[in-house]
């Protein structure tokens, strides 16, 4: 349900998705559906060791197998393909296929190209590798002190990839004068996006033209493509990246390097198109897509009145074996480190370590969800320690609706919000007395019911400065994160819109239709949306950091503005008079004062395409009716040199209040989420049904993180959860029906007041569920400080809390 309608024709409508027909018909265009003439198939040999020197590799038997075209070791591959892209500086060097040393189970050591994937896998079994095992580094805290053979990258001299310590505002004074300091230690689990489609690429190399054509399910082709070209030793214009449908990303595929690189390198060696699609085990063990894996020592200072005065976060983050995303997920967490609360001082110390696991990539929240969890847990702990009501304590510390734009201690800006209203609306959705009654009844039946609440922010519209501003000497202090669109009006008046980022489960075609329809006054049914390759393309940062709809709206605003100017110019010549006296609506350009006089878009389209000589001999009337527009981040500033001010980098900030109700079996300690309320403020909503879908999906993933999912590595660095039977993604049994509601506080900075909302469900669910579990065992003073809360984990927590 949305609020009172404004004066929009298409914004706010739950338009059905143009993406759906092909997907429902089984005619999607996913990367594994690509089949090219003479296409061969790649498979990679995975390291069985977490950490080892490669002493020798014998590929002769594999190469002799009929059907095998190419067999390469890492060293042989590296003769033609350089190191993988990374944002770290000095770079933590990673090769798509390992050379000399493997640093995690699953890391590729050799690759085979054969006429079928079956034969390629047969050949893998014939490759003999001799390893010298090295000590496995599994525990992130132990990794810090490790020396000698336990160093993953000996040339760096330490397993600490990054350490920095930042203070914004009067932290020491606030802690020194605090009435109470609430301290807790938290352990956040290693999870991953786990899209149902793994990563894949099909690459054709044309040796005559010296050009690669890349089909893949990556994103940011226009940005990352140049980095992959460099690794392949070619110029960016020698690679054309096509855009596929993507079977889910949730951030992980936004930084996909190794898969297209392996396929491209092998295609050039084989002289044939090569398909490389990960199987599920490869995706889990070598996907380069694990997410934040953190230990927090956190403290919140309160004054005598219960006001929050300072927050201190000391974080150790286990990045796995490499460091391609640098400190981006901490930059991200800093965008809203103080949450929806007035907290004038912030301390953030971060230690990023490398261990023998596959490395991190973004996952819905990109570290911000961890920060939200820790802060919300601290607030609940503070309420308990000071004898305050957790809802009242939150309300008391909320930034007020009149305080926006609000600057948080590190310099980021929150644009707008009305947190109390979101909270009120969420509380109104929950029948508190009924749940209290059910709680009593359940207790008699051996069940515990608990209700928990979280109030969190959702920073949206990412700017890239977060990827490097924690570094003293960043490798690439980029400051552009634009989005582009191309729009053409056809001779029949229909609009063709070209996007430069993939559909990966968001709804870019629907968004483009609704936005173009709104700006131009054209029926969405007369708008066709397609995707441009990098050859045709314009720069696009794509759908990361809950930015795509806001950025696309900016780009479409720019392009349609140019189109409208030209259409009015052409129409004014035909109709006589001033272009400024014209308006666009219902696929017509007409005189504002005499609406009957006008031209249809089709008439203008035909004129622009075919009747040049009907217009003056002036450049302004040249043929064609198309516009392209590249829209820059709407509000971003550079950090100061000493980082005492990080600048504005994530200013469009939504808000959410989630209430989870859990039921726990006292005997088995199995926790089920049985009821759920989510109220979000994502500014002006373009398509309510789709926003609700993003929220529900994010909550489902949040339930997974809170209760079920975790990559378990044993002490030798062996991955124990390498299948979907062991890594438990929520099924339809684990995700309840969810009450979703909205408040709309339009952003003052964006087109139509839209805010991003792609990550919000997963930014809020975990602390709400943790609080609900606490509540179920309030009599035992249980406090959830580690996820996931599996039955055995809960059993352990209860035993600890009773002691």
């Amino acid at each position: 349900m949305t609020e009172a309608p404004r004066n929009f024709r298409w914004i706010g409508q739950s338009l059905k998705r143009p993406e759906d027909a092909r997907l429902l018909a089984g005619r999607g265009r996913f990367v594994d559906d690509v089949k090219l003439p003479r296409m061969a198939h790649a498979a990679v040999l995975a390291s069985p060791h977490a950490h080892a020197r490669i002493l020798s590799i014998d590929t002769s038997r594999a190469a002799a197998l009929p059907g095998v075209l190419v067999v390469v070791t890492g060293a042989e591959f590296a003769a033609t393909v350089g190191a993988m892209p990374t944002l770290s500086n000095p770079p933590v060097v990673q090769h798509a296929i390992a050379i000399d040393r493997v640093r995690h189970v699953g890391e590729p050591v050799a690759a085979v190209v054969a006429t079928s994937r079956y034969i390629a896998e047969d050949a893998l079994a014939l490759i003999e590798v001799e390893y010298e095992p090295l000590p496995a580094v599994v525990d992130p805290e132990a990794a810090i002190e490790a020396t000698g053979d336990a160093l993953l990258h000996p040339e760096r001299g330490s397993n600490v990839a990054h350490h920095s310590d930042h203070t914004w505002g009067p932290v020491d004074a606030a802690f020194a004068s605090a009435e109470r300091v609430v301290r807790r230690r938290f352990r956040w689990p290693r999870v991953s996006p786990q899209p149902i489609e793994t990563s894949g690429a099909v690459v054709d190399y044309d040796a005559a033209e010296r050009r690669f054509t890349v089909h893949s399910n990556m994103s940011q082709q226009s940005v990352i493509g140049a980095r992959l070209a460099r690794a392949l030793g070619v110029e960016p214009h020698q690679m054309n990246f096509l855009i596929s449908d993507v079977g889910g990303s949730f951030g992980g595929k936004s930084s996909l390097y190794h898969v297209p690189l392996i396929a491209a390198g092998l295609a050039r060696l084989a002289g044939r198109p090569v398909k490389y699609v990960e199987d599920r085990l490869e995706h889990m063990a070598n996907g380069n897509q694990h997410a934040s894996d953190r230990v927090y020592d956190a403290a919140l200072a309160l004054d005598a009145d219960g006001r929050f005065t300072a927050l201190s976060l000391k974080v150790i983050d286990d990045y796995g074996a490499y460091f391609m995303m640098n400190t981006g997920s901490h930059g991200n967490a800093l965008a809203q480190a103080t949450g929806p609360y007035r907290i004038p001082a912030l301390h953030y110390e971060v230690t990023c370590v490398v261990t023998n696991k596959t490395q991190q990539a973004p996952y819905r929240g990109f570290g911000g969800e961890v920060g939200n969890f820790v802060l919300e847990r601290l607030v609940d702990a503070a309420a308990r320690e000071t004898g305050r009501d957790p809802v009242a304590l939150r309300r008391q510390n909320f930034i007020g609706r009149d305080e926006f734009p609000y600057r948080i201690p590190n310099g980021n800006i929150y644009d707008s919000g009305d947190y109390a209203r979101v909270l009120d609306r969420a509380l109104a959705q929950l029948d508190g007395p009924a749940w209290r009654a059910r709680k009593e009844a359940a207790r008699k039946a051996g069940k515990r019911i608990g209700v928990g609440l979280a109030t969190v922010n959702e920073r949206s519209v990412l700017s890239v400065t977060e990827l490097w501003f924690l570094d003293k000497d960043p490798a690439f202090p980029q400051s552009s994160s634009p989005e582009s669109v191309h729009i053409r009006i056809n001779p029949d008046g229909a609009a063709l819109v070209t996007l430069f980022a993939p559909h990966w489960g968001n709804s870019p075609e629907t968004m483009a239709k609704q936005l173009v329809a709104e700006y131009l006054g054209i029926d969405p049914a007369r708008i066709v949306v397609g995707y441009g390759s990098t050859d045709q393309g314009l720069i696009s940062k794509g759908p990361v950091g809950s930015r795509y709809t806001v950025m696309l709206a900016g780009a479409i605003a720019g392009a349609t503005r140019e189109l409208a100017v030209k259409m009015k110019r052409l129409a004014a010549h035909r109709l006589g008079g001033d272009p400024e006296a014209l308006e666009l609506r219902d696929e017509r350009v007409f005189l504002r004062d005499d609406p009957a006089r006008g031209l249809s878009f089709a008439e203008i389209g035909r004129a622009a395409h075919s009747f040049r000589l009907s217009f003056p001999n002036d450049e302004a009337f040249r043929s064609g009716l198309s516009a392209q527009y590249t829209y820059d981040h709407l509000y971003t500033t550079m950090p100061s040199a000493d980082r005492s001010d990080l600048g504005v980098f994530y200013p469009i900030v939504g808000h959410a209040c989630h209430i989870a109700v859990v039921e726990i079996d006292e005997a088995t300690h199995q926790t089920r989420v049985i009821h759920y309320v989510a109220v979000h403020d994502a500014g002006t909503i373009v398509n309510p049904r789709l926003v609700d879908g993003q929220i529900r999906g994010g909550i489902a993933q949040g339930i997974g993180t809170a209760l079920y999912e975790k990559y378990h590595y044993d002490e030798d660095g062996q991955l124990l959860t390498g299948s979907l039977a062991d890594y438990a993604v929520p099924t339809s049994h684990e995700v309840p029906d969810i009450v979703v509601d909205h408040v709309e506080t339009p952003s003052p900075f964006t087109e139509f007041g839209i805010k991003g909302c792609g990550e919000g469900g997963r930014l809020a669910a975990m602390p709400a569920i943790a609080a609900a579990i606490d509540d179920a065992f309030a009599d035992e003073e249980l406090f959830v400080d580690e996820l996931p809360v599996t039955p055995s984990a809960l059993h352990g927590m209860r035993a600890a809390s009773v002691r």
Partner: protein
Amino acid sequence: MTPVAIELTINGEATAATVEPRLLLSDFLRDTLGLTGTHVGCEHGVCGACTVLVDGRTARACLMFAVQADGAKVETVEGLMALNGDLSPLQEAFRDHHGLQCGFCTAGMLMTATELLRTAPTADRAAIREAISGNLCRCTGYETIVDAIVQAAPAFLEAAPAFEARETPR
């Protein structure tokens, strides 16, 4: 390995092929026949993305060899839409309720729902949740998929006798 000749019906069309005994049904459909609507998510029978109907019953195409489908009637997602592009009531319901986001699990969901509604067109939400619990979706949170199947059920109730006649439950 000596190739084996098989004959089967796929979406009503008689199909003959000679295949390696180890060729998975999923690869046979996708690679040999070009029916790429059936997706492969995990290749170990957990995610359900590759679900097809074999003689009216759901089967994981990644856990079956093509030779095991010899003589069978196989139905895939490609058989649901009419030739003129009209979506079936079940497909329409998924679109109406936003029962898909990325669309990768969708074929398996549709085939699982087809089996359910042919055999139990009056299934309630709990029964629907039970039926789709072997199909993982990472995008939607399932609720809108359940909504879609609820909406589509009456269309199957009307069609139920015809399906009964050709079903032979094992």
